[in-house]
């Protein structure tokens, strides 16, 4: 285990940020801490980094008891949401900072910084100031700066949170590739479930200061431990009193086994998908279903038409009562 956190409690005044949290993060993996804002995920990350200290509990990094170590002594690289660039230093100086602190020879610093700038595709910007870079470039500079000191653990706090959607998506793929290349144990915090599902090896869902579930992205999506995880990881709708994913409902043109009759109330087309809103004849619940355009055409769906519904994927969590 690269990082081992056990029994962490942390309060800010009356607010309980973390409530008896324990977590094991394996070496060399890319782990996402996913949850709504204010849920405690950033606090956990900051405790691992030594930027915050727990009220009780302990943190071990690569087998070393680190609970009370200052951030300087943890061999942890940290990337902040708002870049935390050293504004008065050039890109080169920013990346060189940690190496200069360690009093490395000039030639070695120069070589290592240029390697890293190449890695993050900023080699031609070495002499620029951070204010002359775009947001995505600044965050890549921050990443290079954190990697320069060869940390055992890389921690990223909402690293793409301040960027626009397009850049976010690109950086996300890029982070995944970078991780595959460098293999440094990485934890990143996000509130974006798509980001977590797409990038990470493992997701830790945190809500209200507690860990709700830990698992591989596909596991969490298909076998959520509770309603919260199910709702947080993807779209849900209610059919017959059960939470279901809207793409896990099958529409039949004729009555079938265990199928419930319903009427189409509304059709919306969003790009390649069609959303059908329905009302069941019995119980009067109003689920919605995600279909492909071709499926919708084959069924000849239109408002007012009767269809029969059944779930293709047994829902694992029960009942919003």
């Amino acid at each position, binding site marked *: 285990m690269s990082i081992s956190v056990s029994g962490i409690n942390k309060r800010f005044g009356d607010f309980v940020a973390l409530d008896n949290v324990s977590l094991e993060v394996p070496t060399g993996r890319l782990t996402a801490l996913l949850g709504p804002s204010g849920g405690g995920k950033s606090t956990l990350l900051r405790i691992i980094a030594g930027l915050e200290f727990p009220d009780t509990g302990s943190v071990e990094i690569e087998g070393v008891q680190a609970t009370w170590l200052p951030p300087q002594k943890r061999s942890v690289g940290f990337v902040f949401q708002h870049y*935390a*660039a*050293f504004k008065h230093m050039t890109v080169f100086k920013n990346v060189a900072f940690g190496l200069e602190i360690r009093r490395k020879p000039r030639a070695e610093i120069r070589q290592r910084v240029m390697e890293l700038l190449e890695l993050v595709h900023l080699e031609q910007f070495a002499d620029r100031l951070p204010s002359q870079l775009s947001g*995505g470039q600044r965050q890549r500079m921050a990443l290079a700066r954190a990697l320069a000191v060869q940390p055992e653990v890389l921690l990223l706090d909402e690293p793409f949170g301040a960027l626009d959607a397009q850049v976010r998506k690109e*950086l996300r793929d890029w982070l995944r590739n970078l991780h595959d290349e460098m293999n440094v144990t990485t934890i990143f915090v996000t509130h974006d479930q798509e980001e977590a599902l797409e990038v990470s090896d493992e997701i830790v869902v945190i809500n209200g200061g507690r860990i709700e579930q830990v698992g591989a992205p596909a596991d969490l999506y298909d076998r959520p431990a509770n309603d919260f995880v199910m709702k947080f990881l993807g779209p849900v709708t209610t059919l017959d009193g059960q939470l279901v994913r809207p793409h896990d409902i099958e529409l039949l043109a004729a009555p079938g086994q265990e199928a419930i009759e319903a009427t189409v109330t509304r059709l919306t087309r969003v790009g390649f998908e069609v959303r059908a809103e329905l009302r069941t004849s019995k119980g009067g619940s109003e689920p919605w279903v995600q279909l492909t355009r071709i499926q919708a055409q084959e069924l000849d769906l239109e408002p007012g038409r009767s269809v029969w519904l059944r779930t293709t994927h047994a829902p694992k969590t029960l009942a919003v009562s």
Partner: protein
Amino acid sequence: MATAPEIPAPPRRRPRPVSSGRLSAASGLGLGVGMLWLSLIVLLPIASIVVVALQSGFGPFREAVTDSEALDTIKLSVGAAVLVTVINAVLGTLVAWVLVRDSFPGKRIVEVIIDIPFALPTIVAGLVLISLYGPQSPFGIDLVGTRRGIFVALLFVTLPFVVRSVQPVLIDMERDVEEAAASLGASGFTIFRRIVLPTIAPAMLAGSALAFARALGEFGSVILISANLIGKTEVSSAYMLKLIEQNDTTGAAAVATLLLVVAVIVLVLLDSLQRLAARRD
């Protein structure tokens, strides 16, 4: 390795707005009014001082500024101003730091107290100081007629300048920048020297310039505690007043001109330091 997102970057280091060499009507008017105002309020009086100083020719001017009493007062005023500025640059920054970074009971009150040297009529400040550090001092410290008394008075009136210039910059400074430096291994001292200081240095220097200018010409708070002893505690502003009372307007203007030159030199020096600090670490 995936290709990184390419965001077009600005082509030059410091892009400037394209200038056609002509001003729009509005900015032309603004510039005109600004220059006129500055001329009336600042440049005209300064020019007239120089004119008065030189109205009887260069001889009397040189005589006035090489007078040993005049030189003593200028040395004292400039020396005291420099010393006080340096001390308050450091301590004012410390006070600003405490006010921004620490929370303690009574902080709001301290916030108000800081500005009192601004608000108090300086002669009142002089009275306060003489009752504290005069012959009837409750602490038994009598600074009347000493240079230390002058320093104390100048420290008092110039304290707010650096505090009030540095404070907003410290408030704006993001904490994550210091945290980033810490996680890269920088000690508290290194973080202050390499991250915090370069950020607040321009504000410190700007505040210092104001404090220096104020200390150089200070009269009210100094005059009582200094007791105005010739050759010992006589400051330039008091000396000039004396000359005016003796109807030696030219002499007073000459000393003022010399003081003005010193002030301009120091302000230009501080300004170029400020530019240097703003540019790079």
